[in-house]
């Protein structure tokens, strides 16, 4: 029976209360372990299509008569348009239309950050559009910019009140501590740098708007466009069939889509608006910088007595304050915790969600300082973490729906044990060490999400749902779930997705939610079809016969199954957990770091596709290595203008930076969570990587790094500091 419930919906650590209609999730979970299809490695169902270049991404789409848009963006961090004349642009060859402030809501005269959109043109070719934008006659009135996050907080330039979380009595906790350690940690701005830049191709077909867009949420784009334009949502069709990376930065329509919509309306033609790589590296969002002042108090046996953190999120001109304090609040059992998180508003490009926003940054600070504590107490870092394991959610005492972090620790032991052998391979100049860090993050997904399954007389099935595969392999996982439930081979299942006009509402692909939100809906739909097939079989006197045999009587008829994602378990906390162990070599004279091996053990419930899961682990760790060692958006300190707009200056890791990666998953279904018991794995693997590497560097050299990225400058500083500490600390006369 359909049931209206009020439930907490979480995406990327942000909760909202929503009403959803759910259907009871009546299916029992499959027993743990690999099934016929689910739990067995499957190569991507669209792998060949992608490899052959046949998969059509938004970037590939060419519609007849399509025009190309380019956008005039503020070159200044803070400026007002004093004068703007579009006429010179309109005179250039190939130009069809030009729009400015007032013509589309996203175009503004007052620019609070570099890259703020002011005007746009569309022309027959991208080069003509760019030339036309350059020809726009514009005069800027530069205004004073706020660029320093701490100064912004001090001056009250903030996004809302500081977020305070407090439990117990922190001062009493520190008073009861045998040891108190403290440290200041800083993390840098990093850029998503999706392979496919942010872009949309739009066309008006009568009163219906068709939007092809590289997005993580076709339904969200539809909703936002309909609301902005004031048209019914069913007059907006949003399509994203293949997608070249988002990492959290493609959850909304973006200015480029609204620019394309207005230009398409004016010209009556399809219009593409695509960010260039340089625009992408300024205005498409970023993982914002953080400052973290942390204090930990503990008993001599390692029991945590108090945790305190003051955090600054350098949000930029717009965005939200990511849960950087989350790990301090949720990773360990500690009765006394107080965190204050400020959200600085500066004249820098807005942040956007980036793969476990906040938790990546917060885990770096917390777990690095925890290793300082372990050293002070002369405790094994793994043992210290075990001793502070949280048996229930420390925030509010709720039980977990499932938690296997201790099992992760147990499985990490052989990797952790390698530290003796690794250290022994050190030389006079190249020191080796091993470090670890724990991971906590969301990833439980939730309703609403729906799917249909269609079975034809040929015994083949099509999963129909308007979700999107953002490159993580969701198509394959959904096909596996349907094949498993129907009892047919994987290659007999097709997945139709990525189109709001073709299929029911589906979840956003963010917050590690695709598998836990969509998987149960797909299984429910397949089960509904299977039930009908079994009923027919019984009438045919063929109870238990294979699906293909039963449905062969249908001719043109079809079996239609529908399914919905059931509710999350009431009163339980649903989280993902894990641990990573990093091995590094450090050249103590040059500050060079080689990450030689990372072992990752994560607990995300049942694994649908072990091959896809290993890709997620590898991808998260590689992105984490970039965050840890080389990626850094640099801004001119005086003007706030971004300097690293190209891939030469903004250093993503290359294959030469990638170590041996050993991924393991506990792979035990979360018995409380849906008909699958699966959580998401998109984000967990990037969460502990920076901290594990920093702790390995400390293990190898004694150097305590306090900043990401761990550049030559930062590491040489930390090495000098460690040598100084050793010299001062050495007994007199030695």
């Amino acid at each position: 029976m359909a049931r209206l419930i009020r439930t907490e919906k979480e995406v990327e650590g942000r909760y909202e209360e929503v009403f959803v209609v759910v259907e009871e999730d009546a299916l029992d979970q499959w027993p743990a372990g690999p099934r016929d299809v689910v739990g067995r490695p499957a190569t991507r169902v669209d792998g060949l299509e992608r490899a052959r270049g046949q998969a059509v991404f938004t970037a590939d789409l060419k519609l007849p008569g399509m025009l190309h848009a380019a956008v005039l963006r503020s070159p200044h961090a803070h400026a007002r348009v004093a004068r703007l004349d579009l006429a010179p642009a309109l005179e250039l060859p190939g130009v069809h239309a030009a729009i400015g402030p007032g013509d589309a809501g996203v175009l503004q005269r007052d620019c609070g950050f570099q890259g703020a959109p002011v005007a746009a043109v569309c022309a027959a070719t991208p080069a003509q559009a760019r030339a036309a934008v350059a020809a726009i006659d514009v005069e800027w009135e530069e205004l004073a910019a706020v660029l320093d996050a701490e100064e912004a907080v001090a001056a009250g330039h903030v996004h809302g009140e500081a977020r305070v979380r407090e439990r117990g009595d922190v001062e009493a906790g520190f008073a009861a501590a045998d040891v108190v350690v403290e440290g200041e940690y800083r993390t840098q701005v990093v850029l998503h740098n999706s392979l496919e830049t942010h872009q949309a191709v739009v066309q008006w077909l009568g009163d219906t708007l068709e939007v092809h867009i590289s997005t993580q949420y076709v339904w969200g784009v539809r909703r936002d466009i309909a609301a902005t334009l004031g048209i019914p949502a069913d007059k907006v069709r949003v399509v994203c069939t293949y997608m070249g990376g988002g990492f959290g930065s493609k959850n909304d329509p973006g200015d480029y889509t609204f620019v394309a919509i207005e230009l398409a309306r004016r010209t009556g033609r399809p219009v593409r608006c695509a960010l260039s790589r340089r625009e992408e590296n300024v205005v498409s969002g970023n993982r914002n910088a953080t400052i973290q002042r942390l204090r930990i108090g503990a008993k001599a046996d390692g029991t945590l007595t108090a945790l305190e953190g003051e955090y600054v999120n350098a949000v930029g001109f717009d965005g939200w304050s990511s849960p950087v304090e989350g790990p301090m609040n949720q990773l360990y059992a500690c009765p006394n915790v107080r965190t204050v998180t400020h959200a600085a508003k500066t004249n820098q490009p807005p942040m956007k969600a980036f793969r476990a926003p906040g938790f990546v940054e917060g885990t770096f600070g917390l777990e690095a300082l925890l290793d300082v504590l372990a050293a002070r107490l002369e405790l094994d870092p793994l043992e210290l973490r075990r001793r502070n394991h949280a048996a229930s959610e420390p925030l509010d005492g709720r039980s977990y729906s499932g938690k296997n972090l201790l099992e992760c620790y147990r499985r990490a032991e052989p990797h952790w044990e390698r530290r003796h052998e690794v250290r022994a391979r050190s030389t006079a100049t190249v020191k080796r060490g091993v470090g670890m860090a724990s991971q906590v993050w969301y990833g439980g997904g939730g309703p609403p999400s729906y799917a249909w399954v269609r079975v034809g007389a040929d015994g083949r099935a099509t999963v129909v749902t308007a979700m999107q595969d953002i490159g993580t392999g969701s198509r394959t996982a959904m096909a596996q779930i349907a094949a498993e439930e129907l009892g047919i081979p994987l290659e007999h299942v097709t997945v139709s997705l990525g189109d709001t006009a073709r299929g029911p509402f589906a979840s956003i692909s963010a917050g590690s939610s695709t598998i836990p939100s969509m998987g149960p809906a797909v299984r429910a739909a397949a089960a509904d079809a299977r039930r009908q097939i079994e009923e027919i079989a019984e009438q045919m006197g063929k109870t238990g016969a294979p699906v293909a045999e039963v449905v062969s009587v249908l001719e043109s008829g079809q079996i239609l199954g529908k399914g919905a994602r059931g509710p999350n378990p009431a009163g339980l906390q649903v989280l993902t957990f894990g641990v990573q162990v990093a091995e590094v070599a450090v050249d103590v004279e040059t500050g060079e770091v080689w990450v030689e091996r990372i072992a990752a053990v994560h607990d995300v419930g049942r694994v649908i596709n072990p091959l896809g899961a290993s890709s997620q682990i590898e991808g998260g760790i590689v992105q984490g290595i970039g965050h840890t060692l080389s990626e850094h958006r640099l801004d001119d300190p005086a003007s706030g203008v971004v300097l690293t707009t190209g891939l030469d200056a903004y250093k993503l890791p290359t294959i030469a930076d990638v170590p041996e990666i050993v991924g393991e998953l506990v792979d035990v279904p979360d018995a409380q969570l849906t008909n699958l018991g699966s959580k998401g794995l998109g984000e967990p693997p990037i969460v502990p990587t920076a901290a594990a590497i920093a702790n390995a560097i400390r293990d190898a050299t004694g150097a305590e790094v306090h900043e990401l990225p761990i550049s030559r400058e930062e590491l040489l500083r930390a090495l000098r500091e460690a040598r100084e500490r050793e010299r001062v600390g050495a007994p007199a006369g030695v």
Partner: protein
Amino acid sequence: MELRRASELDTGGATPIAGGTEVVPLVRAGLLRPAELVDVRGVVPRGVEDGTIGAGTTLAELEREPSIPAALREACRLAASPQIREMGSLGGNLLQATRCWYWRLGWECRLHGGDRCFARDGEHREHAIFANGYCASAHPSDVAAALLALDATVVTTRRELPVGELYHVPAGDDRRTTTLEAGELIVSVRVPAADASVYLKAGGRKLFSFPLVGVAAARTGGSTRIALAGVAPVPWLHSGSFAAASPLPRNAYKVELAEALVRRALAALA
């Protein structure tokens, strides 16, 4: 913009292009606006013979060339990415412009005719620690540093000159970074044999990184020459001391890095 193939070494004032790994990005960025590009790959010599390297030889060919000194081979191998090394020529590599982000973004700095060095007052963590008073740009060529240590001679369409004299530290009265004249083309490079040589490099990632610091050292007879990449607006012949270094607030680490690599290079030659 026209592109034609050269039929002779005299390009008639057109901008020469070989592998295009530098010229094309500069054109795209609007930093180079040539009326005409002339593809010189058909007329500039390619290959190595008796210590003379054709300027059209690619870095990929040189990194596999057994007859040249190890420092040069290594400098080629550690430069750029495999794809770029397959295309990029020796002559083009020697003439590449700085990676200074302000210059690359077209800010009106001294090298672009302005009156400021934005890097000196601004973001300069990858910039010069020597000769940086006027312009703090760092020379990005690994290969040039190796050739400078090896005391190579550049042969152009008009003259022969020691590789060090190909470069010019930009100053108020002359902001050029090379001494090549308009229409002059590098034809080949003569590289004397060395008893031992080495090139060591520190980058921002393992591959595909311009040198934060590159150190080339070559021993010939009783004398050793050391040259550095990434530390000055030109390839920098090392005096043996870092006392003259003038690091900026955020790039002092480069001095420590260079000292370590020089020590290591000398040890490797011993």
